[in-house]
């Protein structure tokens, strides 16, 4: 019989405050609904263009379409078969299949209702979160990169640690690590503002009120393209974010985002640190 390995004390710490948890879940819900209703809206015209205008007679840079029952994605001049995933899937000739759109069947007016309702939820909740993060110090204390974290050497070290799937343990796991901070800051300060502003740029009324938005993005169809690229950005963030949650311990991570309490991962045994 083997001896029980000596257990390292793994204290529960209160890591995530209530306002952050509330915003996280409201934001997660909004972004999922925005992505799914957005895919339905995309299905209404599954071509993207650069510039001020763009319709069926003009040159798109991205098309998700179908030849009969064969789906394809065409990027520039390159066409890739995607039957079963995009263009033609689930017996439906639409860019995105019913499984991932809101509503499941073609319904542009309903998708727009979902999209705009949750656009307001997203915008108002991110404004409330930003006010909280500024006033409470969450932004400076937890999300801002510390002085020592701002060096390329430090970031490179962090990238290598991530690539080896070695995450911070013990007390170091109490704080976000630099790559994590950069990912969260990118969503909050780049992706969300960009997706909201490009969304607003597609509004003919707001074009009259704020013509500088069109100048900024190079025209309505460019704004529409950037809007969808942002959506891919969100999808990419979600994929990596969920992967990290799974790798870092899904129960522990979920508990900390629901109750706030997080069990610090045990320090790695010394033997693991051998060169």
């Amino acid at each position, binding site marked *: 019989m083997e001896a029980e390995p000596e257990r390292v004390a793994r204290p529960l710490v209160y890591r995530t405050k209530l306002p952050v948890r509330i915003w996280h879940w409201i934001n997660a819900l909004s972004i999922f609904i925005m992505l799914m209703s957005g895919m339905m809206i995309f299905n209404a015209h599954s071509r993207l263009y650069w510039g001020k205008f763009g319709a069926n007679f003009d040159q798109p840079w991205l098309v998700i379409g179908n030849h009969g029952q064969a789906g394809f994605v065409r990027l520039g001049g390159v066409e890739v078969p995607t039957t079963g995933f995009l263009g033609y899937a689930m017996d439906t000739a639409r860019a995105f299949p019913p499984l991932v759109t809101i509503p499941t069947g073609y*319904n542009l007016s309903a998708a727009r209702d979902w999209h705009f309702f949750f656009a307001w939820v997203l915008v108002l909740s991110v404004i409330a979160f930003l006010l909280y993060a500024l006033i409470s110090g969450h932004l400076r204390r937890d999300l801002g990169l510390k002085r020592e974290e701002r060096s390329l050497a430090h970031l490179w070290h962090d990238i290598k640690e991530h690539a080896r799937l070695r995450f911070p343990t013990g007390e170091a796991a109490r704080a976000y690590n630099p790559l994590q901070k950069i990912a969260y800051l990118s969503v909050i300060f780049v992706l969300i503002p960009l997706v909201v502003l490009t969304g607003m740029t597609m509004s*003919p009324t707001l074009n009259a009120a704020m013509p500088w938005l069109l100048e900024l993005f190079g025209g309505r169809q460019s704004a529409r393209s950037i809007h969808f690229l942002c959506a891919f950005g969100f999808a990419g963030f979600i994929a990596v974010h969920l992967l990290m949650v799974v790798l870092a311990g899904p129960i522990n991570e979920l508990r900390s985002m629901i109750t706030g309490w997080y069990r610090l991962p045990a320090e790695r045994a010394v033997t693991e640190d051998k060169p």
Partner: protein
Amino acid sequence: MSLITRRNALVGGTGLLLAGCDKITASPTVKNVLSLGQKANLTAQRLVQDRNALAPEFTRADLSPKFRENGTRNPNNDDYNRMVASNFADWTLAVDGLVARPFRLSLAQLRNAPARTQITRHDCVEGWSAIGEWTGVPLGLLLRQAGLSSNAKYVVFHCADQLLGAQYYESIDLVDAFHPQTILAHTMNGQPLSVGHGAPIRLRVERQLGYKQAKYVMRVEAVASLDGIYGGKGGLWEDRSGYQWYAGI
């Protein structure tokens, strides 16, 4: 012996999930709550912009090489075909409803009336855009000429085409009706408006989406309320397909 394969279970489970989602989407309560978002769009957009703020205007260099036709491409009914055959010689536009002096104008009279020319972008609700040059009579001019009643709140456009088995119509409120770029266009890219684009005249209400740009306009009616007009929601797409009356985004 029954065999439940993983694929069957997956397909069945997915079907149930999708059915559940659709039930939520189809609920009238959900639809009413969600439409608050679009109502907020109207309130917010009216709040942040001057009522006369102009939609961006472009140059001839920006024109779409080929302007896609939206909605009906040809009404193709007997009355309309007769009008096309006579080059709209007998066609008249009625301006009536809550006005002191209802009147009718021929196409020749409209073409000789004061006009505005603007190169603007047409945005379909589906997502595509096309840029064209439109020339037409400002709607505000016609409404003032007719002596709009102070009870009037909306202007309804009755059209010659049918879609989804119903008469096409649209409506706008007075903010858009008196907007300087709101015109009844008889000329597109320097040519008389083609059948595909809404001959003899179509509405241009440049701060809204394509389905508001009524084509084949026969009659302009000032009303106090949209209740009781066709389906009551202010437009064919609004009545039949649940699109919002305000199409500013």
